[in-house]
């Protein structure tokens, strides 16, 4: 692994009073390029966007202060973003579906493949095959699967297969009832490799003696899986889960390539809505508000990361 934790032998930094009051010009020079880019392109725009989210934002500039009206409209008055009812719909609800099903299926299949692959000789090959979508563009994944889902059974593989059983043809991406499930399946196909590789590395860390001892004591493979393997990889599972949830909040490419949020607006996600409202539609204040919602959804993850890394004392 590229990053090991800090060797325990390193001494804690000697506490010297007065040390802190000297300006260290070397440190400033090393940090300056990064600080400039981060302040100009991240920090300052973030502050601007927070401000713009409380404005009508005509033409991308401050035009008319509207307070929290953009946010109130988003959550109560915009069926494209959130429509409560039965069943609920809208971009935010779609993201909820994504978070539940995409995250669960990726972790479940990733763990299943990682565990099963250790039992066969072609472990490296199966892992590489499943991991391959991680390397290619979401744009290409979108084209690959739009082709598989194509309604004409003389072109689309899935409808050709269903045709053998006398079903279909089904327009998977053309109906509001199926489109989100079809897209989630593609997302899972693209991300299982990530879960597999991370969880497989974690499984290799479980000592084989523990497993052997359990087997000698007559434990079944099922109880070994649930009582030994799952608890020992629970931290990597939570890390993978958090990363996948972040993927969902930022999900854009697949939606843009495969459906443009359609049919109608039925497969929009938050990140897609942000782009759509801000640029093609030119509703800048509203788009800024969606960007702030994205940021707020990511804040728990941000706190989780900062806590995790500061408690690990990676700082020297």
């Amino acid at each position, binding site marked *: 692994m*590229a*990053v090991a934790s800090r060797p325990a032998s390193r001494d804690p930094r000697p506490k010297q009073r007065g040390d*802190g009051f000297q300006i260290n010009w070397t*440190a400033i020079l*090393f*940090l300056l*390029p990064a*600080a400039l*880019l*981060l302040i*100009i*392109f*991240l920090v300052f*725009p973030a502050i*601007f*966007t927070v401000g*713009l989210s409380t404005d009508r*934002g005509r033409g991308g500039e401050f035009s008319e202060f509207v307070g929290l009206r953009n946010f109130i409209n988003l959550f109560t008055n915009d069926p494209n973003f959130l429509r409560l009812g039965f069943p609920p719909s809208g971009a935010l609800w779609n993201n909820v579906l994504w978070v539940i099903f995409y995250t669960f299926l990726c972790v479940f299949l990733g763990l299943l493949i990682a565990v*099963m692959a250790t*039992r*066969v000789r072609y*472990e490296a090959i*199966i892992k*590489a095959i499943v991991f*391959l979508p991680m*390397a*290619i*563009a*979401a*744009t*290409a994944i979108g*084209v*690959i699967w739009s*082709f*598989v889902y194509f309604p004409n059974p*003389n*072109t689309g*593989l899935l409808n*050709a297969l269903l045709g053998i059983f006398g079903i279909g043809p089904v327009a998977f991406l053309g109906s509001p009832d199926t489109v989100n499930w079809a897209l989630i399946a593609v997302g899972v*196909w693209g991300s299982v490799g990530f879960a597999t590789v*991370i969880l497989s590395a974690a499984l290799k860390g479980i000592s*084989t*003696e523990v497993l*052997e001892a359990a087997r000698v004591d007559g434990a079944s493979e099922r109880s070994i899986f649930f009582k030994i393997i799952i608890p020992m990889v629970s931290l990597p599972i939570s*890390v993978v889960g958090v*990363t996948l949830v972040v993927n969902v909040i*930022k999900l854009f*490419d697949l939606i843009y390539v495969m459906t443009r949020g359609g049919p109608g607006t039925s497969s929009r996600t938050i990140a897609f809505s942000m*782009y759509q409202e*801000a*640029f093609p539609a030119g509703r800048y204040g509203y788009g800024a508000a969606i*960007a702030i919602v*994205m*940021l707020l959804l*990511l804040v728990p993850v*941000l706190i989780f*990361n*900062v806590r995790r890394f500061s408690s690990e004392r*990676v*700082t020297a």
Partner: protein
Amino acid sequence: MTATAVGAGTRSSDRTFAQRLTRLIGRSPIHIVLGLIGLIWLVPSIGLLITSFRPSSDMRASGWWTIFTNPSFTLDNYLRVLQGEGIAGAFLNSVYITIPSTLIPLVIASLAAFALAWIKFPFRDTTFLIIIGLMMIPVQIGFIPLVQGMRPTGLLTNFGGIWLTHAAYSLPFGIFLLRNFFITLPKDLIEAARIDGASNLGIFRTIVVPLSVPAIASYGIFQFLWVWNDLLMALVYVQSNAAQPMPVKITQLLGTYASEWSLLAAASFLVMLVPLIVFFSLQRFFVQGLLAGSVK
């Protein structure tokens, strides 16, 4: 390989054929499930690959799977997208966008990571925690102000805007990754160089960078593939049609030729070509970068 598998392997030599067959059948569910998974993960891509080499008249008449009974191949689709549809230009644009967008953050993040790992200054730990926090800022937060701000400067029509934004939004992860690697380098080595009178820049150039090639390579490959595959940032920060990289060009083709799968397939494999080469030749670094990003 686990200890059980090794044990089973050595024992199987003195088993009879019938026993081995029983064992194989007992294990066959695993092979069947993994085989099925392998098929689901390979067949969609292979289907598109075959389609990219089929004449488009064949594509309209029958599915790509009929190629096995009725083979016919052509390079016409590739020639057509490269010449007629401007994919050759888009490929070059992708190169122009990706190389600086990878090298700029690589250099800047290395410098900052070195300061955070080996130079003492006030609020160093706090600075590092802020960097970790910035890792989570979504790119969307900058879209509106940066597009407004860069439009009059012309940065959105040359490649400047996309270089700088890719660099900036990649820095927190890069600094995090590299700083955590730099800190594991032997302290004695760096202290000894300091005592010998080496400057910080000298230590950075002659000790830290040469010893950190694996980590720098992991970050470089990660960033290269990220930028090469990116669609969203290019849609926002490249506003000249002549400067569009391949992912944007493919979505335009998708709009124009919704069911011309032969052309779309050829264009998609051209965008996948570079990542596949990188992936197969440098898989180890890529997986390392990924692991470093999520676990620890």
